[in-house]
């Protein structure tokens, strides 16, 4: 387990985490780092949770067991919290802070957790929590849909993955639409910077 790095990304359908994994996949190829990943497609995507597992290094498994993620990226805060079962005390966590309450909340079948409590619950159990307002940052970068790129920037800044900014940016150029490349790179840089200031 020591020579591999395990990343879980959790998001709500439509938040662009599949593109984020595809960028990381390409970056790993460019960097010559073995990578396996797995995603759940199909029924789970109809407004449900979309989870990607990415294993960098020589491991052969493409999925990550409970308690074994080295880093967790949550595109939505309550999903980050739900993803805690994949984490352990050494796990680094990056989360977006903009809630997308599930529909069950609107019909009174659940209560959205308090944001301060949510962050405290994560921070007190894991190695590091980088909480960023990725939606605001993406807007500033020029496109609200660039949340995924902001989070990738923050992820790379933590240094947990064996990938450099240069590789990821190169992958963003080939894997994302030409018209959005500049905005995406800007969003990535801003995410990287914000995570660096984060204590």
């Amino acid at each position, binding site marked *: *387990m020591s020579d591999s790095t395990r990343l879980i990304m959790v998001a709500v359908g439509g938040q662009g985490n599949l593109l984020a*994994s*595809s960028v990381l*996949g*390409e970056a*790993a*190829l460019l960097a010559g780092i*073995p*990578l*396996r*990943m*797995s*995603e*759940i*497609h*199909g*029924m*789970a*995507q*109809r*407004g*449900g*949770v979309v989870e990607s597992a990415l294993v960098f290094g020589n*491991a*052969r*498994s*493409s*999925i*990550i*067991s*409970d*308690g*074994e993620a080295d880093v967790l990226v949550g595109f939505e805060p*309550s*999903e980050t*919290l*739900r993803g*805690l*079962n994949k984490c*352990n*005390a*050494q796990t680094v966590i990056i989360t977006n802070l903009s809630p997308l*309450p*599930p*529909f*069950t*909340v*609107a*019909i009174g*079948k*659940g*209560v*959205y*957790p*308090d944001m301060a*409590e*949510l962050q405290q*619950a994560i921070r007190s*159990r*894991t190695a590091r929590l980088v909480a960023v307002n990725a939606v605001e940052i993406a807007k500033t970068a020029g496109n609200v849909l660039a949340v995924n790129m902001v989070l990738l920037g923050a992820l790379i800044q933590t240094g947990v993955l064996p990938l450099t900014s240069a590789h990821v940016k190169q992958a963003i150029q080939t894997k994302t639409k030409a018209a959005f490349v500049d905005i995406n790179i800007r969003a990535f840089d801003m995410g990287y910077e914000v995570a660096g200031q984060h204590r």
Partner: protein
Amino acid sequence: MHKLLTDQPGLQMVMLGNEAIARGAIEAGVAVAATYPGTPSSEIANNFFQISRETDLYFEYSTNEKVALEVAAAAANSGVRSMCIMKHVGMNVAADALMTLAYVGVKGGLVIVSADDPSMFSSQNEQDNRYYGKLSGLPVLEPSSVEEAGEMISHAFELSETLQEPVIFRTTTRINHSTAVVTLRTIRKQISRGDFIKDPFNYVTVPAVSRRLHVKLLAHLDQAARCSDESPYNIVSGNGSWGVICSGVSFAYVSDAVQDLGIGDQIRILRIGFSHPMPAGVIKTFLASCQKVLVVEEGEPYMEESVKAFAQEAGLTLPIQGKGEGLFSRLYEFDPRMVREVMASYFGVPCPAKPRLDLSGVPEVPQRPPNLCAGCSHRATYYAVKKAAEGMQTIYPTDIGCYTLGFLPPLGMGDFLICMGSSTGTSCGFSRVTDKKVISFIGDSTFFHSGIPGLINAVFNNHNFTLVILDNGVTAMTGHQPNPGVDMKLLNFQDYGQVSIEAVVRALGVPHVAVIQPYKVKKSIETLKEAFNFKGVSVVISREMCTLYAKGFKKTKTRPYYVSDKCKNHRECISQLACPAFFLDAAGAVKIDPVMCAGCAVCAQICPENAILPVKA
């Protein structure tokens, strides 16, 4: 050019398992491919559909898996390399063709992809299709990784041609939907035209012919057993005396566990990639060199049963275990930690583990179940049906597609489902033995797939129910594939026919047929009421294009709606429709997300205060 056609051997590409399989087939010179879409197999065919527009590959979305296999069987018996792709339960539909095709065999290679779904991420069961190999007498190949899946396809075609039999290529979700780096190999020139040589005494399976063909099949099976024993895909590694026999993705988990447990010197692994017939000689030799053996396989104890039988034949009495308490389950998929823990306990070595987090006291996270999309026409139909059936005791048999999600609250439309097409057949049974009003649901693609025979049965046997056909003009659930009712001209295809569901239903002699536009709520309720009151078989076709699919054809977005200050917070919109575009703001007032709102206006029609209005341009 499609990326899977890249003709640069040695180039490395990041590929989804299903892309690797499609690429492997292209490298093997596949010339005909047929499918009925089903997760987790769908992307193989989606890629073939695109590739068929650029090459001589003939690809089709067939009406169902049985038809797909028959198309491929004929092509293969004309000497053309063919492929048939389906999810595991599709094999049940194709089984009638499969069982006797095994007797007839093939001339050109035929590879049947069965994508199994342990854990049922998007399936109604988790059956283990390796047993289809045993049942039919056909060889089964199983890759353990994305790269191997791509490479093994060429071998599957060669094996099929050597044995003159179809080969079952069995994958699981974690192969189909995993991604890894794949190295491109040379593309073999495709031979797309064949010829069928008449030979009725070997092709027409009347009893006298089949009696001989069964003998031939058993001879092929013997030959397959020899191939399995010599197969480069049944691989032994390590020199230890603790044996592990595994297949598919379990091999990855076993390999990682050996590293993590540091037991490389004690372990000997037999990875089975050719799993029917099982390699008797290889297994007996393997067992003879082991003190004890653990069989690691997801699903049923398919290998375990064979391995124990081989041990008996060889007079070996070593412990062999796989499924059982404290060992592996027949339920759900495996994961690395589970395999590591069972191996550690079985072989009696310490298991290093990162402690799981103590999650007591963590705030509860609200559930996020999948939901029908904002503006989905199925929601509108379900609402209208519910209103039209008010006061009736009802049973709602449903079927397979996005609309199955209607069984969740608050819609609660869906009471019984077993397989594709079961809505029509089960409606016949329910209406015969109960006094309740039976109203069933089926989508357009599922209707063509296997709903029609049940409806014919209903007309002939004079059953009493209403079938609502949810015609959203595409096979939506699996990613918007065409079906016989789809207008292919919308996609700029000119050489397709189109089958009208309404014409089919009328031609079957259904005595009461109506069509509704579900976004017109009041009119739909009236029409449905008439159908529900009809004694006998009635069909209501609810016609409205899938809102996600329609987006691709619209130049401008339909105007979204908003909740005006006339709202008295009855929340009927939320509690009855459960459209995900609704949300409650901080003050608890109902709001509509303008980005999500598809402008279907159904909520505007049911609001008692008429408070929901279109956003002004």
